[in-house]
Structures are given as C-alpha cells and as structure tokens.
C-alpha cells in the first residue's frame, strides 16, 4: 500500500472520532514509509488529540527534521507545544511557520491563541485579525478575537464579536464559552449563564465552561459581581503587574492608617476607605466558598462544583450549623454568653481556614481532605468548649 492509502484510512478513523485507530493505521504506514511527511504529520495530530504529549512531540520533531521547509511541520510542532503549555517554544515554532507561509490563517490563529495565553492581548488581537483577513471563517481566530477584545476591556466590541461568532459557529463549544465570559465581563449574568449552559450542552466535559457557569451562578449575588469585575480587571495584566496590584491592595489600608495617625484630621476620611479595603480583602478570602454553600442547593450549581469544592462547601455548612446549634444551646440554657462568644470566635476562625482553602488551594485533594481535617479539628474543640460550658465549672 502506498502512504496515501494509510493516510486516507487514518483520516477516516480520525474524522469519526477514533484517534487511537487512526494512529494505528498511520503507524502501520510508517513501518514501510518511515519518512513520509504526511504520515508523520498525521501521527502528530492523532497523538495530540489523544493527549499523548510525549509521542506527539516526538512525531512533530521528526517531521520538522525531515521537512524543515514545510510550514505545516512547524505549525504542528507549535500546536504540540501549546498543548504542553510551553508557550515560548510554541510561539517560536508558529512564527517560523508563518515565515515559511505567511498566508496560513491557521498559523496566525494559533499565534493569536499563544499570545493570549502569554497575556499579550493586543498582539493576540492583531494576529486574530490577520488570520480573519486571510479566511473570514477561521473558527479559532473568530473565537480568539472575541476573547482578546474582552481581555482588552473593549466590552461592546467584544460582545459584538462574540455574538457574531456564536451566530457563525452555533455548534462550537468554545464560541459559546467565550460569549459567556464576555457577557460576564459586561455584568450580564443571565446571558452568560445561557451561553455557558449551551457550551456545556455541546460538550459537557468542557471545564472552562463549567467554571464559567459557576462564576455566573455566584455572580447572581451583587457583592460577588464586584469581586468578579476586579478579577477580570486584574486578569488583563501580566503576572508581575498582577502581583504588584495584589500587594498594593494589601498595603493600602496600613498606609492609610499610618497617615491618619500622623494627621488625625484626615482620619474621618481615610479610615473608612481603609476599612473598605480591609473588607474587600476579606471578601476575596471567603466569599466564593461561602456562596458555594448556597450552590449545594441549586439544581445546576450542585453539578458545577468540583468534588473538592463540594466537600469544602459541605464542611462550611456543617461548621455553620454546628456553631449555630451549640451557640443557641448555650444561650437557651442560660449559660454564659462568654462561652457562646468563644464558640462563635472559633467558628469564624474555622471559616477563615476553610475559606482560605476554598479560594486558594490548587489541588482537589488538598481542598477536600484539608477541609475535612480543618472541620474535624475545630468541631472537636467547639464540642469540648460546648460541653464545658454546659456542664463544666468554667461558668463564672
């Protein structure tokens, strides 16, 4: 058989959603034609689709070695790097591919995605527009353009672009997901929710859309919407600037307090602002995990939470209920309010820990088991305090 026949069969397997079989077919072809660029390219594509990064990289690299002047080879290598989140290498490869063939809309679209991941949204927008100038229907570029506009804060244009993309690509999960995020950025929570639901209907395993749905559900509470606008605003900057902003916000209340101590006359103006900053910082700390508790009772929210988030929310729920029941018990039994206060204080401390876990833990395992451990420790302490308060001699 000549390579073309293997390739045809592989393509067919691939197009009916069987990348494993497609790769087998390509491998069979490569056994007799080990240096066929078409087969190598397809091998890299299939391995990429199977998330087999190591194999994909192998194939793509040998392809570049065999056909160094073929723009597709460099493009595919860039796609593999992009999937491996090696953004610098990806950008290098895709730029080389564009040098070889400046008319490839796919390469420009890939460049747009890579730049967006590197938080270079202005350049990303330009690359997307170049791709669209070559082919106005390029799916990736349409999506990436809408995304870039949103990230640049050009809300109206972003919304137009995202809606246009959704009309053009009604079956594309990504498009609906981007429309969702764009709507969320403009504060249109209901529209965002609809778009995320549509994205999830098309691909229920799309994690970005699930996260978007979660944010939209939380965004139904206005304090969280303020937090969201802050998150969106800060996400426009590069990592270093982001850190600088976060640290600045932490420092501002202290500076304000220091200034007002030295100039007591300014106190009445500066201290409320400092208080607002402090509230804002604490809100960031546990608002999302607290809202997650209410999502436990929401039809879709329940499923939008990850397992770790669900565990965390359940722990917070148990903590709140436990604190409330024990505190109420003490008060109703006419015991000292001091013990009830101690219980409440312990509850707030536990909430602080659980909230921190819920907001900042990076892994599901830490979130789940960390929450369980924190809850157990605090509930035990609370129980001891409660029992001592009820039956012990600590009553004064």
């Amino acid at each position, binding site marked *: 058989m000549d390579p073309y026949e293997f390739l*045809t*069969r592989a393509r*067919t*397997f691939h*197009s*009916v*959603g*069987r990348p494993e*079989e497609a790769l087998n077919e390509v491998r069979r072809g490569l056994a007799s034609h080990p240096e066929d660029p078409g087969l190598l390219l397809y091998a890299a594509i299939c391995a990429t689709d199977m998330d087999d990064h190591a194999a994909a990289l192998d194939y793509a690299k040998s392809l570049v070695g065999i056909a160094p002047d073929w723009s597709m080879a460099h493009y595919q290598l860039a796609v593999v790097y992009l999937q491996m989140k090696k953004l610098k290498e990806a950008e290098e490869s895709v730029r080389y591919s564009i040098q070889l063939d400046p008319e490839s809309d796919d390469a420009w679209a890939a460049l747009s995605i890579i730049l967006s991941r590197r938080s270079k949204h202005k350049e990303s927008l330009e690359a997307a527009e170049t791709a669209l100038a070559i082919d106005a229907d390029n799916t990736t570029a349409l999506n990436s353009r809408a995304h870039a506009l949103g990230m640049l804060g050009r809300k109206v244009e972003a919304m137009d672009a995202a809606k246009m993309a959704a009309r053009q690509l009604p*079956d594309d999960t990504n498009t609906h997901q981007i429309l969702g995020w764009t709507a969320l950025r403009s504060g249109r929570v209901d529209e965002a929710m609809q778009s995320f*639901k549509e994205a*999830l*209907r*098309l691909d*229920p*395993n799309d994690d970005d859309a699930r996260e978007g749905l979660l944010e939209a559900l939380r965004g139904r509470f206005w304090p969280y919407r303020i937090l969201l606008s802050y998150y969106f605003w800060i996400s426009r900057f590069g990592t270093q600037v982001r850190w600088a902003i976060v640290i600045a916000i932490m420092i501002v209340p202290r500076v304000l307090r220091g200034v007002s101590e030295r100039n007591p006359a300014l106190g009445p103006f500066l201290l409320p602002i400092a208080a607002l900053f402090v509230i804002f910082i604490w809100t960031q700390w546990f608002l999302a995990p607290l809202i997650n508790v209410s999502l436990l009772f929401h039809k*879709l929210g329940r*499923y939008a939470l990850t397992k770790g988030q669900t565990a965390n929310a359940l722990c917070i729920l148990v903590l709140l209920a436990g604190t409330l029941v024990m505190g109420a018990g003490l008060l109703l039994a006419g015991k000292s309010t001091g013990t009830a206060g101690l219980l409440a204080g312990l509850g707030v401390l536990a909430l602080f820990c659980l909230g921190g876990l819920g907001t900042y833990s990076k892994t599901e395992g830490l979130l789940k088991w960390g929450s369980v451990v924190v809850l157990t420790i605090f509930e035990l302490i609370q129980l001891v305090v409660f029992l001592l308060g009820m039956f012990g001699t600590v009553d004064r």
Partner: protein
Amino acid sequence: MSVDPTVIAALRAALLTDPENIAMRLHVGQLLLDGNQAAEALKEATEVLNRQPTHGEALKLAEQASESAGDPIRASGYRRLREALGMASAQNLIESSLGSDLEPPYRSEPMRMTHRGDDAENDDDPEEVAGLRAVTSDLTLAQVAGMNDVKLRLEMAFLAPMRNPDLRKLYKKSLKGGLLLYGPPGCGKTFLARAIAGELGSKFLSIGLTDVVDMYIGESEKNLHRVFELARRNKPCVLFIDEIDALGRKRSLMRNSGERNVVNQLLSEMDGVEADNEGVYVLAATNHPWDVDSALRRPGRFDRTVLVLPPDALARAQILQGAMEDRPVNQLDYSKLADQAEDFSGADLVHWAEAASELAMADSIRKGTVRSVDMGDFKQAKKDVKPSTRPWFETAKNFAVYANEGGTYDDLIAYLKSRRWM
C-alpha cells in the same frame, strides 16, 4: 459456479411482487449469468435498463451477458455506452461482489461469539454479498446473563409484537424500526444484539468500525445502500451497527461534506425512502451516545434507546462461572467473588478469570504439579484488574446533567441517582 435453481425461482417470485426492486433484479441477473443462463440474464439486465437506461451495473451485466450469449457486437455496444457514461473505470461494489479478485470494499467483522446448538441451519447457505454475510444466530436472550430490566423492555417494545403477528396486526404495530443500545464498554451490547437476532429467529447482519471506515473510503453512500438492500433481501433480518457513533456521527462534528453525506444516507435508508424496510430491524450500539446524530433518534429511526448497564451481582457470578467453565477449579465461591467485583464490566470479569487462571498455571509450572484455580488466585489477580466502567459513568454524568434534551438520558440519571453518583 453452480447456482441453486430454487434460489433463482424464489427471487423471481419475489420480483413479481416487487418489480421495481432493481438491486434484486440485478442480483437475479448475476445469478443467472453465473448459472450459464446468459440469455435470461440479459433479459433481466434490459428490464432494468428499460427503467433506468444509464444504470451502470445493469450496463455491465448486459455487456457480460451479451458476451456470454455469443453476441460480441451487442456487448461492445453496451461497453461503449458505459465508457461514454464514464463508468467503465468505476470500481463499483457490484463488480467486486460478482466474483472479481479485488478486495471487497467492506468485510464483515469476525464473529465474536461461537454458535451453540446444532449446525443444521447452516446447511441452508445464507446469502453473501461482498463478503458481508447474513447469518443466523442460535443465541437466545436466556443465554445472556443478567440484564433483566433490559430484557423486559426489549420484550415489551420489540420481541413480543414480533412473535405475535395477529396482535401486531390488531394494534398496527409496524415490523420495522430501530433500537439503540448504549452503555459503558464491555458490558455485552454486541452480545445482546446477537441474542435478539436469535430470539427473533431472524438473520443477523453486522457492520463494525472497520466496515464503516472502508465504507467511507469506497463509494460510501452506495455501499451503505447495498448493506441495507442485503438486509431487506434477507428479511426478517436484524441489521446490527456496532459503534454507531462512527457511522451516524453528529454531523456538526464532521468536517467534510462527503462524510456528512454518509449520515444523510443512513437516515434515508432507515426511513426506507426508496425501499420498504418492513422486516428489517436496525440495532445499534455505542459507548458514546452523545456523538450520535440526534436526527437518528427521531421516530421511525432509533426511537427506542436502552441503557445496557454493567452486570449485577447475579450476572457477575454467572459470567465468572461461564469464564471458568472447562478449567480446573477448586472450591470457587462465585457469588462471593461477584460481590467483590462491583462495577466490573463483563469484559473485566473475563479478564479477571483469565488472570487468576494464569496465576494458577504459573504456580503449576513452578511446582511441577497441576493445581486448580482457587479463591487465592482470584484475590491476588484482583490487584491488577480494575473496573473499567467508572470513567465512562463520570463522562456520562456530565452529559446527563447538561445535555439531557427530551429525556434522552433519563435511564442513566435514574441509575446514577440509585448509585448516589449524582
């Protein structure tokens, strides 16, 4: 090649009631030609050409028949006509099915199940077209372990009306239709399909993934049409399409229009636009029901969907027992083993049994004496065998939550809730 004259007679009788069935007429013509009745074959070919003057396969048959009948001038006339129409070089399916040496464009999947019972029925040689055979299945639903809910639903929706023609007539229940089996891999969807065919006493025709791929590469729509024609000729016949998410893939997932055409063709074949599907039941199975084009779920096509779940404890015990049949065993408590194997698919169970047997064999080789497979082997083998169905349910859950339009996944939701996975 000798041809059974009774087959030809039967087909001709069928043609009297269905004179417009071109595929059947061409088939008769070919059989006549093979049976050295060239003049008769030519008659059938011209009959077709009277209806469709540019029919390539008919022209080819007419050419061959004229040649055999000793009329080369007429033969060259047909050939020129064919060349003028650009068909002479077309490597069409008929050609390969007419005994050419070329590789058939699609093959039947190798039979996965052995036939039980006597071979008496195999004497009546089933028809074969292009390597695809309609075979009878001796398997019955009773031989399928477990799946009682599924069997009950099948019985009510499908089997009972088919066994009782009077009732069927009374309630005007049609004898065509489709059933889509879905569920985690390795849980016996294919096995169940064969059992249904056996239960109905009908012929069984199966197309798998490789056939589908070959179909896409060849003249796809025509090939698919031929498969359905074969099923119609063999009625009552169960046409089983394994991995229907490949052949009936969501058109929105397909990039090129040629591939989408195959789905369109499948839709029109299932509707029986050109030919009557009475007596053809299309069964399909998939692990990815969410990738199946939703148009295939409309009434008249796969209007019934059945979830095939992993075997329950009783079925697991039966499957294990079946797998250990003819192997030396020592005090195996199958129900105890079955209890330890929750969420195992049928394939996982068989794998487990094999792994345990392997351990006993390795031990026997080491010690130089034959030792039977015991509970200890199973215990040890279990370390390497993990239930393969959980990841499927994880994915399926998301579809049930977000994409349950029209209650497609109600069965699945009920199961997930009963397992507290949702």
